[in-house]
């Protein structure tokens, strides 16, 4: 196949690239945030009641197994959205984020040592305050690890939406393919890759900043 590398395409389409990047971030990051907010209470319930755990964790596994193109395509059938509604991509991304994080949150909360919660109770923490001030902060490193995987995955999953017409930078990939424009494709792929790595690094950093005690402990061990 004769491949075109029309480099002048790049400077001429800066606006288009910026717009697609903005759309990509909106499509990818909003659901990750929503998924994080939803999975904390779900994980809390699963860590507290074994019955909830026995339902939620296998359900999360099943949902995570369904391929994204299938899930994206089925949202209009299930929610009655139009075929080019951004929700068709965002709902599956939120589902994947929740499926991933529910397990992380549950795991992390169950791993909080009993003596820690007992000590917090003994010095007067009520259950709600204890959860927010003691258990959840201790779970942060594990939750951040899950969130990094979810956010990085979301960046490349969003591109799949382009196959049915919603995809941010994914749209540049499919358009470049149809127009035999390798530059357009490489630019979009590189942007997705670089932004994903930046988000990954930012989350790693944020996780370290909000858990100063983990650094102290590592320093003390040396």
């Amino acid at each position, binding site marked *: 196949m004769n491949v075109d590398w029309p480099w002048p395409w790049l400077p001429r389409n800066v606006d288009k690239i910026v717009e697609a990047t903005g759309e990509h971030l909106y499509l990818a990051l909003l659901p990750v945030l929503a998924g994080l907010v939803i999975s904390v209470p779900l994980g809390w319930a699963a860590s507290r009641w074994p019955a909830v755990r026995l339902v939620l964790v296998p359900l999360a596994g099943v949902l995570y197994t369904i391929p994204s193109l*299938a899930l994206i395509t089925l949202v209009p059938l299930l929610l009655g959205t139009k075929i080019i509604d951004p929700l068709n991509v965002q709902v599956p991304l939120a589902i994947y984020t929740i499926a991933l994080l529910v*397990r992380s949150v549950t795991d992390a909360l169950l791993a909080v040592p009993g003596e820690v919660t007992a000590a917090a109770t003994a010095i007067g923490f009520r259950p709600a305050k204890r959860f927010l001030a003691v258990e959840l902060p201790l779970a942060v490193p594990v939750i951040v690890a899950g969130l990094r995987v979810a956010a990085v995955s979301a960046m490349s999953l969003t591109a799949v939406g382009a196959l*049915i017409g919603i995809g941010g930078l994914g749209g540049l*990939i499919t358009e470049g393919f149809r127009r035999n424009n390798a530059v357009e494709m490489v630019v979009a792929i590189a942007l997705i890759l670089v932004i*994903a790595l930046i988000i990954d690094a930012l989350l790693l950093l944020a996780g370290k900043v909000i858990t100063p005690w983990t650094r102290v402990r590592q320093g003390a061990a040396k």
Partner: protein
Amino acid sequence: MNSTLNWLFDPAHWSGPTGIPARILEHLGYTALTVLIAAAIAVPLGAIIGHTGRGTFLVAGLSNGLRALPELGLLTLLVLLTYVGLLPVVVALVILALPPILAGTYAGIRNVDASVVDAARGMGMRGSTVLWKVELPNALPLILGGIRSATLQVIATATIAAYVALGGLGRFVIDGNNAGAGSPNGYPQMAAGAIVIAVLALVVEGVLEIVQRVAVSPGLRNVATRKRTARIWRKPTPDLVGRST
């Protein structure tokens, strides 16, 4: 919903070279070919890295770097740069399948109890015998776990093959979308195809889970059951597997 079910259960869509069974076979064909090639590369490589402890950076680097790579872009770009055919598609899918198998094999070998390896050496086993008779059988649950998550990734990603004019179950979604969502062969075809893709992924996951249980040595199985009674919901596979499709 009704038009989707009508499309799905229309006998005309269940026969011939473009029918649902033929597309399922095509899809499973792409998947099997990809996973076989990827396993043939990644299992020996992961075993050597795990056994010798050399090249560990490769395992972490590959899985971190490739997770962020949009598979849609990789596959379509490879086809554009070469030609429309099975080879570029399979190469793109193999690149996707390598990291989980490599990571699973590596972690499996590394996680073998050091005292077990010491005992094997104490009995006079050489390096390669330790690898074959002790490390690999003990690592089998994690190796199979890696192959399982690779297989599911490939099933999900093989749907994109239809976009570059190959077959497989993605055909129904792509063709339906091209026909226009409103036409009788439009959205109903897309949704029916999506249902088949989802069911196929779940069935394959179930089958592989059974294979994983059956294939693992009874000695390891007992350890796994003991652990499971303590924490019922825990799976022996690595938890945080990203997905790019």
